[in-house]
């Protein structure tokens, strides 16, 4: 960025020829990565011509190059006094102020140049979380997958979420939503008895609230209380017959209890509601296999492998197919699938136990 700011032509136009010489020397030092010389030359240029805005910008830039953001702020501010529209000065000053913890002061400068990533960070600092999320989302659309942006978007979203929940708990502590929020928190912390208690209280207050039974079912599922989980998931499927997740969870709970036929029905319904979900297809394969329908199991697992090339679900599907073929006496195919399973295990690590 800084390398782009070679203001050579400004130097050539400098009124004071001596200041121009120092500008040239400063730019030369920059090219030779002699930061201290660069700073000294630009400083002399500003002393010889205190109205030379570009000299102040370059001096600020030189300090930033040395990560001396505190020293950069004064010359950059002076540059903007002399020439309020200099984009580079706004950008550097915004960065310098942000780096020094002056987020609120940095924001107008960053807004001026549309530096959305840095602006988002400043907005997190000043509590403008909605704006921060919007800015990070916009930049991510241009730079998808950028790890820093993903982190900051997640961070901002988390804080936004926390703020909303804090407000909910403060304003409506006895509401069903407050109990649901507490339950979700306990669930994440694996404090299942507390989570169960809060979900039940939320359900007492608003039994029709979508999602509550699903989440309570997951509490039971996490501690392998499958009949209880089944009850909750079944209630959720009645409340939300169009929810693929509710059908999937119900199917999985049934599968865990060795009820393959019922499990298949729910998993097939989930697959119709939201086709080609690898998790659903994998479980569908298991249910079909348990139900003795090898062809359906083979079809489901093959589909998973089509969708997921190098994931643990793909590995598990190869393993399932190996067992299926072994049972059918198709030794060569079984061996092939086992090798594929082992190959994937080597690449992605063994599937973890629950």
């Amino acid at each position, binding site marked *: 960025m800084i390398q782009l700011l070679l203001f050579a032509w400004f130097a050539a136009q400098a009124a004071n020829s001596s200041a121009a010489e120092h500008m040239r020397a400063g730019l030369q030092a920059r090219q030779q990565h002699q930061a201290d010389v660069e700073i000294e030359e630009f400083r002399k240029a500003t002393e010889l011509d205190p109205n030379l805005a570009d000299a102040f910008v370059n001096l600020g830039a030189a300090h930033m190059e040395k990560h001396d953001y505190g020293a950069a702020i004064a010359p950059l501010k002076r540059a903007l006094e002399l020439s309020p529209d200099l984009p580079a000065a706004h950008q550097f000053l915004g960065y310098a102020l942000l780096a020094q913890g002056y987020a609120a002061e940095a924001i107008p400068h960053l807004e001026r140049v549309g530096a959305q990533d840095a602006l988002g960070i400043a907005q997190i600092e000043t509590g403008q979380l909605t704006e921060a999320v919007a800015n990070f989302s916009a930049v991510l659309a241009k730079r998808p997958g950028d790890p820093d942006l993903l982190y900051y978007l997640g961070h901002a979203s988390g804080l936004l979420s926390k703020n909303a929940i804090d407000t909910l708990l403060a304003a409506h502590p006895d509401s069903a939503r407050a109990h649901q929020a507490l339950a979700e928190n306990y669930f994440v912390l694996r404090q299942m008895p507390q989570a169960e208690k809060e979900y039940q209280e939320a359900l007492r207050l608003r039994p029709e609230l979508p999602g509550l039974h699903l989440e309570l079912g997951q509490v039971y599922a996490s501690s392998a209380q*499958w009949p209880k989980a089944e009850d909750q998931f079944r209630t959720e499927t009645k409340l939300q017959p169009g929810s693929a997740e509710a059908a999937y969870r119900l199917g999985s709970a049934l599968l865990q209890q060795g009820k393959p036929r019922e499990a298949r029905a729910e998993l097939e319904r989930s697959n119709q509601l939201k086709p080609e979900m690898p998790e659903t297809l994998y479980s569908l394969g298991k249910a079909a296999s348990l139900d003795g329908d090898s062809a359906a199991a083979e079809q489901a697992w093959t589909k998973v492998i089509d969708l997921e090339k190098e994931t643990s679900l793909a590995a598990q599907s190869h*393993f399932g197919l190996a067992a299926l073929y072994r049972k059918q006496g198709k030794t060569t195919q079984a061996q092939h699938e086992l090798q594929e399973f082992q190959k994937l295990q080597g690449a992605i690590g063994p599937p973890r136990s629950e």
Partner: protein
Amino acid sequence: MVRRFTRRDFLGGAALAAASPIFEVKPLRGIDFILQNSPTPQKYLIETMPGGVALFDYNNDGLLDIFLVNGGKIANTLHVPENFDRAAPRYWNRLYRQNRDGSFSDVTEAAGLAHAGNANYGMGVAVGDYDNDGYPDLFVTSYGKNILYHNNGDGTFTDVAAKAGVAGGGWSVSAGFFDYDNDGHLDLFVTRYMEWDADHSKICGGDWHTYCPPAAFPATTCLLYRNRGDGTFEDVSERSGIAAKKGRALGVAFADYDGDGFTDIFVSNDGMQQYLFHNNGDGTFKECALDSGAGLTSDGKGLSGMGIVFQDYDNDGRPDVIVTELPRELYGLYHNDGGGAFSYQSLETGLGTLTSGSSGWGVGLEDFDNDGWKDLFVAQSHVLDNVQQIDASLRYKELPLLALNHNGRFERADSGVITPLAARGAAFGDINNDGWMDVVLSTLGGPPVLLLNRGGSTNRWLSLTLRGTRSNRDGYGARVRVNGQTREATSSGSYVCASDKRLHFGLGSAEKASVEILWPSGRKQVLNDVRGNQFLEVREPEKP
């Protein structure tokens, strides 16, 4: 009009309820043993692992006696080399002789079994007549040196481990006698858990301060000893191919799963793939669990394999495998499909709902209700003594699992135990010779627990004692079929335990049984019209 509930209805219901086996939790009269696992703040993993129980008739008086393996004293900070002071009587292994009145007498000192020697922290026990003299011998595993006690036939035992060459070393857990080369002499297999010592011990769980998972320590190999027939054994672990596979082995069980006439070995490994060592019949073994479908769960995941049983649960004539696990994993049931293949059928058989929240150790498939189907019994308790703090849905002490077998599907039944236990070992046998299989459990820091089966139905039974002549004298490795049921003759399996070697069959309402024995020597013996409700010794015919 609502029909009135009559007294007959009530009695009918009561009779149905009584059809379930009822274990009565009984104090073992005369047994004052406490299993000293000596837990420390240092959370040495060995503390979580003992201790063995053997049900065997050491003096051939027709009554089962009990041998109990003790842990040992652990200083809060172990010294290197570890001492495990076993001199004090509370740390001794114990032998209790059963008296005619059902009580037991401590004969440890008289039998020469007092003080197992320092530097050994006791783990498990195996029983077998390795010298075919008609008296069962004991093999005791330890963290440290293992001990082979020769039964002198006069009520005493002699430590012959050094002479026999089976002292081993490292951390041995379960062991079992079997005849892998069908030469008529019992060989010995020993599982070893991991490379561990006090110097390299760790504490895990951060603030929870608890025991580490097995993966925190290096894997190691099991031991196989071939019986030379002269009172000594040869370590053939390398030559046989057993040592080619490193694992974290806890349990071991034997059966000829593919019917080729040679006994195979299933090893339960903790936190990884299970091992099935196929006996090639030439003194070597090939590990083939993954290829056979018995290595992982149906999702391709490893198992926290602890206890193991290798018997036919669905009466199709082929031995199946059940491996006990930690919670969130189902106890692994591998159905023997024939042709050397297994399929994972924990869900199909009902083990999913029965076992997904429990930790299983000792395990047995025994026909507790004598209906002709082998039922499942598991000693249960979590490894971590503070697991409830870490996961509130789990408990350290658990009730044992009794699951009755209804045509190959297991359903929970009342074990009769009402106080949760930190159970480890489970040995099975008919303690009081009443025709109903009983259970003895070992519990960490506690006394052994006897679950006396009071029967409760008119079902008949048959108990067979095999007397090998060309085969090993115990008949281990024989496949015995009785009225459509099959048992592999063994006292091994479960976890760190040795069960009654007599083969118990429930006959249901049948008064007579047809018995078919395929001896390890290859001889086949058929007995027809065998009367039920009897203990019968069957001698292997010396001539074909």
